[in-house]
């Protein structure tokens, strides 16, 4: 009897899980389906699900109009560059806060997070002027620094949460064996924190990949990433849903594939310490 209840419960939970999963995935699936429709089929009522004239015309149009590869490589440079730079600062900062906390550590962490609460447009003009004066407009370096600064609070918070779970005695033992501070971080702490660092890296890459305010406002063409690529297919006058869907599918494809392969690390890192 107990076994029957358990099976029924399992089936119910599976159905609920799949339903929620499909509900969340539905907009992405609809975008992908629309990308294979003609503009007329894209707005058909009732909506056409799978039985329509499948076409690659939208992808051909997007390919002919835009240099997708250049935009994608810019996204890769910006996402990877800003995340790598972030790790250089976030790991030591999180180490200090986790293993040598002061009475102000919590306040500093909250203050760091509070910088995320400032609406970006409020500082657009000062940042734009600084970039203009330093010759950083439409440059990879400038955007990498901006994206790094935007994601730094999240990186520090995530790594801090993860480091807190590592027993301080292990680091003490390393110190007893004569390890310097650098060696302690590089050879003891970092290898033990690979899942936490991996999930932080993945999340920051996704956030940098999707960032669409600074990447649109501080670039023109040389450093313009996929957000600019999508913006060039959106229009308030004229329905180009199918073409926009094709552009969106191309833009999310790399990050979707990356997320698919690394979902285990991502889930583990995000939920680590949530249940004790």
């Amino acid at each position: 009897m107990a076994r029957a209840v358990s099976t029924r419960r399992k089936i119910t939970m599976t159905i609920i899980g799949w339903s929620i999963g499909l509900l969340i995935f539905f907009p992405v699936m609809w975008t992908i389906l629309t990308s294979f429709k003609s503009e007329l089929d894209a707005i058909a009522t009732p909506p056409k699900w799978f039985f329509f004239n499948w076409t690659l015309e939208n992808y051909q149009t997007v390919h002919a109009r835009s240099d997708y590869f250049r935009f994608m490589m810019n996204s890769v440079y910006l996402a990877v560059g800003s995340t790598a730079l972030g790790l250089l600062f976030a790991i030591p900062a999180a180490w200090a806060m986790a293993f040598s906390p002061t009475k102000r550590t919590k306040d500093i962490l909250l203050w760091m997070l509070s910088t995320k609460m400032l609406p970006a447009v409020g500082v657009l003009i000062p940042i734009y002027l600084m970039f203009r004066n330093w010759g950083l407009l439409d440059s990879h370096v400038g955007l990498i620094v901006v994206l790094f600064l935007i994601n730094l609070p999240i990186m520090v918070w995530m790594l801090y949460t993860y480091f807190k779970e590592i027993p301080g005695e292990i680091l003490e033992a390393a110190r007893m064996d004569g390890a310097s501070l650098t060696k302690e971080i590089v050879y003891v702490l970092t290898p033990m924190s690979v899942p936490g660092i991996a999930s932080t890296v993945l999340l920051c890459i996704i956030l940098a990949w999707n960032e669409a305010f600074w990447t649109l406002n501080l670039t023109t063409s040389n450093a313009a990433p996929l957000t600019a690529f999508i913006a060039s297919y959106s229009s308030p006058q004229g329905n180009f849903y199918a073409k926009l869907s094709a552009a969106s599918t191309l833009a999310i494809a790399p990050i979707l594939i990356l997320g698919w392969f690394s979902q285990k690390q991502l889930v583990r890192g995000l939920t680590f310490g949530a249940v004790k």
Partner: protein
Amino acid sequence: MRYRISYLASCAALAVATAGVASAQETLTIATVNNGDMIRMQGLTEEFTSQHPDIQLNWVTLEENVLRQRVTTDIATGGGQFDIMTIGTYEVPIWAENQWLLPLDNLGDDYDVDDLIPAIRGALSKDDTLYAAPFYAESAMTLYRTDLFEAAGIEMPAAPTWDFIADAARQISEANDDVYGICLRGKPGWGENMAFLGAMARSYGANYFNAEWQPQFESEGWTTAVTQYVDMMTNYGPPGAASNGFNENLTLFNQGRCAMWMDATVAASFVTNPEESQVADNVGFAPFPCGIENCPNQGANWLWAWSLAIPASSQKAEAAETFISWATSKAYLELVAENEGWSNVPPGTRTSLYENQEYISAAPFAEQTLQAIENADTSAGDDKPYVGLQYAAIPEFQGLGTAVGQQMAAAVSGSMGVEQVLSAAQQTAVREMTRAGYIK
């Protein structure tokens, strides 16, 4: 050894020569919006570069609102990121006044500036000097379903009034369960519902401000216009109309769900395109309705032109003007017609286009478009102190128009009454205009 030296010398000379050519070549960065006409222009890039091998083009295409924010930031800070900007009739007078734009006084002997439609030329000039060249222009018109009108036994008059439109919307709504009598803009924004309401209020003789810059939202004209607008939207419009903009209404119309739609003339080419519209063969065109007899500008109270301008921060002004001259010339229209057909030619800028029989037979909406544009007089006058019709060309209008637009959307959604909304709009406008120094 001697051969090797001479070979190296030749290579060096070639490299220097190549570098010389490379340095002589200029690359223009052009910011533009994503619409069919602009995309066609990008597709014809090679036609231009083959005629001007010393000029290369680098396109930055963005969604309209993103583009506006992007180019405004750049020009206000002197960022110098663009050599040519696509801007509208709202920006040109303000930016020209601020000396942010270079005058276009060297467009070439063949350009024929007198061929530009006077209303458009006037909207893009300051002190008779052109500061932006029109690429395509639009006014507003009525688009309606001829089959539904015929079935209901209604005939669209040559100059419809809002009372007629409301009555026709009622009749068609009652006769067809799956068709909305009328579709209008409801999405809040200075270029969204306020563009429509500004034009509608003007068709009742009301402006945004009077000669002393006093806001007029509580005037008789605005009260009648907004009351009728809310009434039509609530009773005969689609559900959730407060969130419908141009694209949402275009989709509904193309799906055959709207009997009438009053919006920008550019919509005509979309709804008559069989590749996009399910009702392409059943669309009729009429002027934008009038509210009162002898309404201002014969009901044509909407004018917009996407235009090409050179920011003062550009270091390549000469090459930029060469490109603008090419892209807005008569020869360009012929080039598009040759490649894509006459119906795809950017409309509304040149008088000669509307004298071309090939164009007139390919574009059934040509006559209405020309009539609407020619009648739209944007200039400031005794009745209004500002340039513009569906907008007021002052820097404060974007923020003010959007704030008032949100209040108007509240009336459509039913969360506020019309009187309450107009009173709130008046208060908002008086406060902002006083703060900005227009009201002493």
